[in-house]
């Protein structure tokens, strides 16, 4: 049984109630994520930025579960929160001397960057609204871990192997780059 099915089954909610619950959950997560993301790119404290990033990442994991991609949501928690953010925090704390506060954002850069950001968003939003006006997500059931495994090891076996090699290369690369001599 998966989370969605469990929600429906054990709580005996009608499908309409589930939809409302899903939308409420989405709204809460979306607002939190956008607020945290904004704070992340504006805060001057690097550690705070990393912690805001945690909130965004947890929200993304929540969205994955909401979309029925349970395995992916758990992977998100494990890899992003358990490893990547820890790596960020580790790096920041080890070299706090210059990582402490970031006050080097000049007014001009911020203005330009803001304009670019708004432009990107505007173009994308227009395109999205145009293309997928009322498209509903009507998935019959959530994807299971077995489905994902099946497609990784059949249709996507080549990218999977490529990613394995990439990870190994990145491992060696990071060691070589960060070594002291």
């Amino acid at each position, binding site marked *: 049984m998966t989370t969605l099915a469990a929600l429906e089954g054990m709580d005996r909610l009608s499908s309409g109630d589930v939809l409302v619950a899903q939308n409420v959950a989405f709204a809460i997560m979306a607002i939190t994520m956008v607020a945290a993301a904004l704070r992340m790119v504006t805060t001057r404290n690097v550690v705070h930025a990393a912690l805001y990033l945690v909130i965004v990442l947890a929200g993304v994991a929540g969205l994955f579960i909401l979309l029925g991609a*349970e395995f992916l949501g*758990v992977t998100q*928690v494990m890899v992003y929160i358990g490893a990547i953010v820890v790596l960020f925090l580790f790096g920041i*704390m080890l070299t706090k001397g210059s990582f402490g506060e970031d006050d080097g954002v000049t007014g001009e850069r911020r203005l330009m960057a803001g304009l670019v950001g708004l432009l990107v968003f505007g173009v994308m939003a227009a395109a999205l609204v145009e293309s997928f006006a009322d498209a509903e997500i009507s998935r019959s059931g959530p994807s299971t871990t077995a489905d994902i495994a099946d497609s990784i090891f059949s249709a996507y076996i080549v990218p999977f192997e490529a990613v394995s090699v990439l990870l190994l290369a990145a491992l060696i690369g990071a060691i070589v780059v960060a070594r002291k001599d």
Partner: protein
Amino acid sequence: MSGVLTLAVELAWWQQTGIRAVLGLVAVLLPAGTLVYLFLFKMMSFMQSRLGPMEAGPYGSLQLLAEVGKFLQKEDIIPEKADRIVFKAAPFVVLISTFLLVIVIPAGPDAWFIDVDTGIFLALAVSSISVIGILMAGWASSSKYSLLGALRAAGQLVAYELPLVLAVIGVVIQAGTLNVQGIVMAQATGEIFGWGGIGNPFILTQFLGFAIFLIAVQAELTQPPFDMPVAESELVTGYLTEYSGLRFLLFFIGEFATAAIFAALASTLFLGGWYVPGIDPTSDLFNVIGPVILLSKVILVSFLIFWFRFTYPRFREDQLQQLAWKVLIPLSLANIVVTGVLKVVF
């Protein structure tokens, strides 16, 4: 537990949620309290030829309440240069990890909080959230001992996450599922060379995995011999140094509740969880006695954990990393390969 509830009476969604929340609290606090009293207070004292707490209640059994009362009364001191919000939030982040962990563990065929496809994977994933809390605590305290402790803790937890996960993979291969309930069932209905008398607890076939899992758990819990992050003779108490009162209590509960939950995970993965041989695993009886059986297995496993805790001196940081990378990870990889091959062959 909702499975039981749906069998008995129809309850509204909010009623079920309320009951589940209360049961979750119980599931976290009861084993944690049991472990603290049984092992930290009594077993440790007996091993050190003293009596331990004797005043509060018969054999000091109410000492726990006294301790909680003491912590609640203490002043919640926040260092002047601390990052106040992060400092305050850190213990809760650790507790979130603990509470998320407990929900995947089943205590009977229908007694579960959530029964998800990715059960054990979810447990291992949320257990890594506590690292964030520890790093927050160490950084926000703005004390060098705290920071050193937090960095040590993070390095250690990340390093031992790997053998922990790899040790579980052997079990997952054998059971053929990530679902925790499925793993229990696989052990309950399994057979040893065609003989199904006691099922097939995976400790028999995955003994190496069990040993690696226990060692990794010891490290994840930052208990001796892996307690460098809180080493009192070196770093005072590491990331806990600046905490007092309620917030320290939260960390403390988090530590022992996590110990209990990891012990429960170990007994679920390797010792058959809520199942005992001799009773039909689908029988409703297990919904009642399952939690008791699980608790006694938890106590059995944590006896091992705490035995090591009270006996061994601690490693040094580099020795710990060597143990993880040069011994545990190769061993667990070999275990996975052998398990996989045997699974295909048989």
